[in-house]
């Protein structure tokens, strides 16, 4: 069995469609998970009574259970309660919930690294706790925890391959299906190898470049 470039060329439109799905799912989940992270970190720092415990529990559950089981739970479990979502949004929802927990932790870490004096100064100036978070705390926290936030985003893009398990036609699902139908394992596996390595490496290189830039003021 040799490497068949012509075959690969024929499959290109399918693979491109898969790549688009991978990017779409990840992009939406990145945005939504950061939103969850902002809310979660704020809730935990403001010590909002019930919500705070809920978020702490949510983070622990997500961190200590397999992503695949979470995806199955969303895709197979929720419909039996009458909550039917299209498969695309099942993928987005589970990836969002997964990454949201880690973003909450990232931002909480960032917030706790913001100097105490700033929150005291904000209070002395008459800012409410919420105003402090919105105007001072969170903007600084985002900057402090940007590396870990972006690393989580890179992981999210990588782990978006898990949605192929429920049949969402992302890059890996398209490739797996071609292998099962055409027995062209080498061609498709090399596409996956190159595709994901390119995606993840280019993202993590940009993260490193950004980190470097952000540290510029503190470098001697």
């Amino acid at each position: 069995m040799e490497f068949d470039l012509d075959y690969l060329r024929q499959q290109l439109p399918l693979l491109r469609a898969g790549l688009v799905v991978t990017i779409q799912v990840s992009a939406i989940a990145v945005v939504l998970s950061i939103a969850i992270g902002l809310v979660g970190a704020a809730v935990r720092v403001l010590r909002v009574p019930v919500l705070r415990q809920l978020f702490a529990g949510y983070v622990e559950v997500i961190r200590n259970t397999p992503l695949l089981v979470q995806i199955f739970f969303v895709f197979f479990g929720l419909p039996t309660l009458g909550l039917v979502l299209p498969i695309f949004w099942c993928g987005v929802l589970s990836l969002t919930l997964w990454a949201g927990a880690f973003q909450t932790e990232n931002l909480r870490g960032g917030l706790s690294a913001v100097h105490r004096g700033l929150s005291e100064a904000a209070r002395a100036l008459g800012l409410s706790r919420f105003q402090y978070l919105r105007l001072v705390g969170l903007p600084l926290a985002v900057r402090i925890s940007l590396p870990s936030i972006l690393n989580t985003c890179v992981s999210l893009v990588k782990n978006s391959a898990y949605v192929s398990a429920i049949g969402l036609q992302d890059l890996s699902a398209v490739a797996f299906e071609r292998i099962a139908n055409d027995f062209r394992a080498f061609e498709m596996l090399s596409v996956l190898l190159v595709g994901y390595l390119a995606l993840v490496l280019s993202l993590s290189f940009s993260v490193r470049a950004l980190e470097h830039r952000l540290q510029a003021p503190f470098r001697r």
Partner: protein
Amino acid sequence: MMDTLDLLRTNAPLLLIGLRSTLYLAAVTLLASTAIGVFFGTLATLKPRWIRTLSALYVEVFRDIPLIVTIFAIFFGAPALGIPLEPFPAVALGLSLWGGANGAEIVRGGLQSIPHGQREAATALGLRLWKIYLLILWPQALRAMLPAFTGLLALIIQSTSLGALVGVTEFLKAGGLIIETSTVMRGVNPAFGIYAFVLLVYFAICSVLTWLSRRLERRLSLRGGGHAVRAPDAAGV
């Protein structure tokens, strides 16, 4: 609710088989990951540049490719190369390659946490390189690495659920089988309850390990044993 409990009770043997398979798979993977991790993690601390590059390349590749792709690649790729591979060894191999990459990072961190003077002193005493590692560096690195390896075990246990996709009857698959039979035989789909239970069991096992990992980490720093290697995070591997 009662229905789910009934289902779980009648299918307890199947669930136990699944759980045993999950733990067995995790144990095999942990052993192999440790071996691979020690190998590549040690290479990363050696002098020659090309050896360090080799180690970095291995770590980068298996951490950047989605684990699900690695496992499918082995599962489909081995037969295409003419090597018949059962689902269980295929999954164990895929998990170990990935776990080994993460183990290598931990071992590298552990070895680098040892003050350089140790190595210099050993060299001055005339110890050969392999003896420096065996008698001086590895034993000391072990303390710094233990919390991180405990955390890695939690991640490995979570990742074994991928076995369900290629036909290993581990815990997740056992849950899926119960749902399937119940749906077909009785026309009731218990997916919510069963998968909630599956989540709960994984949570119980992994949160104990995570807790243990944090505790070990804290104990190490309290006793002045230097800093522990950071445990790998599901969002970082």
